[in-house]
């Protein structure tokens, strides 16, 4: 029996971005980039581990908007075009580098091979069903997939309208059942946002456990005996796992974390910003410069400006990923040995990360995971990876403690999602939620058209509630887009509300237009708001 356990949790989420009204939409690239750089590489790692019979345990959240995008015909069709363009560009790059930058030619060939592999996997092997590829790994029992709130709504700030919180959780769980053919056992609360009392909604859909930021456990009352290294049960009947900060920092920290190593690929130096526009041509369909995913340089050093970055050497980067995996494993071994000495059960070290950190931000992240799982399996017996369900099945004696409100945002509470940059959205989100409840209660026997309008109103509300919009407004990245999305969904909701309350005619073409654009959760039933 191992001395302790390591429970890696990758939270994969992107907001629902789908714009059928535009032939190309810059923000849809978020999804395409994450597919190429994160989701497909992680699946390749899992395929490899399975092939080589390496025992690993991984927990992942695939948020409902992300799964909806993975199963959307339009978006996956566009992804194929995106890959075609990328491969075409990579091919031209092999010729250009041969001519102009021979020292990068091998790397250009490597990119071409890589993108072709991705295309083969997604288009041929999986037949565009990426969700199905994850599902197959879940069925082997090594990968545990968690559910998430319907549109990643930040639940603590929905607290004044309980039905809104309830709908987020119910719709998320319902979607999970449909997509993964089983009941979800656990949930990733968006941004780890927990408010005491939300357990009741989790229990309604049969969820058993979730995760909290470290202070959710260390500051629970009464004080848990083992800090974040053993789960607790709240008075509301849900099990909480706490985030281990030591292992988190090793990966997340911009200063001391692995991704900042000088041999790893530099994120910001991309040919999309450097080569002439007329050469890039089709790769920039609307002529706007953007990241294209071909990057030839490494981090190089602390404070080195983009102009002086050194060429990326794939072999060095892989070597470094293996070294870091070894270091991470060594640290976990010492950590669980130390913890176990003070505990009456094997400690569990829970390390949650954004999945997109691996591959998209930290390009070598998937290889790091690959080596780490292999080392953990072959090289030692002190620490083993585990899923939350397995841990609970083996060590199910839990202390009863009540966690306080907590999130994993900066400062540990709701400040990231509620501050001068984004506070103006809450009166509108809140009022729309109240109106949704009012509609659901008032209209008991809707006509077909009204029923469609009610279901669509619920979709618009859910989409407006994505925590991503408030987050983007705070981080000052694509603020105009976040504002536009908030406005668009509230505007559509407002129209449907007015139409359903007889203040304006309910026009079917307009409703159909909304349904075509915001087509998430086709099975949604507005009764969830009653």
């Amino acid at each position, binding site marked *: 029996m191992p001395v302790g356990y390591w429970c890696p949790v990758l939270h994969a989420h992107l907001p629902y971005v789908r714009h059928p009204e535009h032939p190309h939409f810059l923000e849809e690239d978020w999804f395409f980039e994450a597919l190429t750089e994160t989701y497909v590489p992680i699946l390749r790692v899992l395929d490899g581990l399975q092939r080589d019979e390496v025992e690993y345990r991984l927990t992942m959240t695939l948020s409902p908007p992300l799964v909806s995008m993975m199963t959307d015909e339009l978006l996956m069709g566009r992804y194929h075009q995106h890959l075609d363009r990328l491969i075409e560009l990579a091919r031209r790059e092999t010729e250009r580098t041969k001519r102009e930058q021979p020292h990068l030619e091998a790397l250009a060939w490597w990119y071409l091979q890589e993108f072709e592999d991705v295309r083969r996997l997604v288009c041929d092997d999986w037949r565009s069903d990426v969700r199905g590829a994850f599902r197959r790994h879940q069925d082997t029992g090594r990968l545990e997939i968690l559910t998430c709130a319907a549109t990643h709504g930040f639940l603590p700030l929905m607290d004044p309208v309980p039905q809104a919180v309830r709908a987020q959780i119910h719709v998320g769980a319902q979607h999970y059942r449909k997509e993964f053919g089983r009941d979800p056992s656990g949930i990733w609360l968006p941004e780890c946002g927990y408010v005491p009392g939300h357990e009741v909604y989790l229990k309604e859909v049969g969820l058993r456990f979730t995760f909290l930021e470290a202070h959710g456990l260390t500051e629970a009352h009464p004080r848990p005996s083992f800090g974040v290294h053993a789960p607790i049960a709240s008075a509301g009947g849900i099990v909480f796992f706490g985030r281990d900060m030591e292992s988190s920092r090793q990966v997340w920290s911009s200063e001391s974390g692995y991704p900042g190593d000088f041999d790893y690929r530099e994120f910001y130096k991309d040919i999309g910003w450097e080569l002439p526009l007329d050469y890039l*041509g089709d790769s920039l369909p609307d002529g706007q410069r953007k990241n294209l995913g071909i990057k030839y340089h490494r981090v190089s050093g602390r404070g080195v400006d983009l102009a002086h970055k050194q060429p990326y050497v794939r072999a060095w980067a892989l070597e470094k990923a293996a070294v870091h995996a070894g270091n991470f494993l060594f640290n976990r071994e010492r950590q669980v040995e130390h913890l176990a000495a003070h505990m009456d059960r094997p400690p569990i070290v829970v390390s949650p990360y954004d999945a997109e950190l691996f591959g998209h931000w930290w390009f070598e992240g998937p290889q790091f995971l690959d080596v780490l799982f292999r080392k953990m399996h072959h090289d030692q017996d002190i620490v083993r990876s585990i899923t939350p369900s397995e841990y609970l099945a083996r060590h199910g004696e839990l202390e009863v403690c009540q966690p306080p409100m907590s999130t994993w945002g900066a400062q540990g509470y709701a400040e990231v999602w509620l501050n001068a940059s984004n506070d103006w959205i809450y009166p509108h989100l809140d009022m729309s939620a109240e109106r949704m409840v009012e509609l659901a209660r008032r209209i008991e026997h809707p006509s077909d058209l009204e029923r469609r309008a009610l279901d669509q109103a619920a979709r618009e509300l859910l989409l407006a509630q994505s925590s991503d919009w408030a987050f983007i407004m705070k981080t000052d990245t694509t603020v105009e887009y976040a504002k536009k999305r908030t406005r668009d969904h509230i505007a559509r909701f407002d129209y449907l509300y007015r139409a359903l309350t007889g203040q304006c005619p309910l026009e079917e073409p307009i409703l159909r237009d909304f349904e075509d654009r915001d087509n998430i959760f086709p099975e949604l039933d507005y009764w969830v708001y009653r």
Partner: protein
Amino acid sequence: MASKKKAAAPARGGKRKTAARKAAPRSAALKKTAKKKAAPRKAPKKKAAPKKKATPKKALKKAARKSVAKKVAKKKTAIRKTARKAAPKTARKKTGAARSRGSALAGAARRKWKDAPPGAPPGVVPGLSDEDQIRSAKYLPRDLPKRLFEEERFLFPESYGVNRVRLLVRDPEWIFAYWDVSPETMKGLTKSLGERALALSRLTLRVLDPVSGGMSDILLPPGARWWYIRTDVARRTYRAEIGITLPSGEFRQLAESNSVVTPRVGPSRERARRRVSYRNAGAVPPEGAAAAREAEREADLASDPWVAGGDEAAQRGGASDTFRPPGGGRRDRPGASDAFRPGASDTHRR
């Protein structure tokens, strides 16, 4: 579920047909008028420019009137262009010629966040050669997007016409309050109190502690729609009322908020003793969710009852005059080890 979808499908198809049939003659007529109107519009403008001084005033006025009439007509056509089906080129021409204010706004919005050139149809980008433009045509959609509903015309309402106030917990030190007072209520108050008295009255946010008592009033500046309230170390439960403070000092309540509990700070002094088995963990709460809230709130309820609110607390509320509370909640709190805070956690997101 499935039956619902099936039921909806024929309705959808049927409607579409009738809508198209109805709209067809109108849109055909519109096309003609749009072309007719659009054609002469450009020509006289070009010619008129150099001859401006020579044009008699009457003619100018007439032209102005005409153009206003045209604009109105254009607006109407743009708004009513439902279920219109046209080849991309003609559609583009039409939208170009008959640009309503709405679509101009739409254009402005698109430009702002997509950097598309003003008025350009999607896909046409400056800085590309003719060849590039033609090559890019293969990505153009067959139908240009039909604008049935223009979201950019939507303005977030000042008031939703209801009286209400809500509280959100931001962190242990700050609560966010927002409210709505319906114009009807204000009219009613003007009637009952008189304009003079109402002018001297102030909209007031009253913050209360429903558990241990105590309250403080925040006299709101005109136009304020939300407020950050500094919490008190000694208390954790809050409720608020929105109302009017009359010149006499009387508070007239208009709406009451939800009640909130701020999170407890620091490790609990009490060590966990009770244990359950995971199989039974689901059965822990004989009391349900209320038990969770209660357990959290009761955790270490302040032993000192709050000293009567009054001015001091009101001034604290005033600390958020700029709507920007200074700094984060947890920074200088005792017992919070900064080493354990994921400072970097947000820097790497996306």
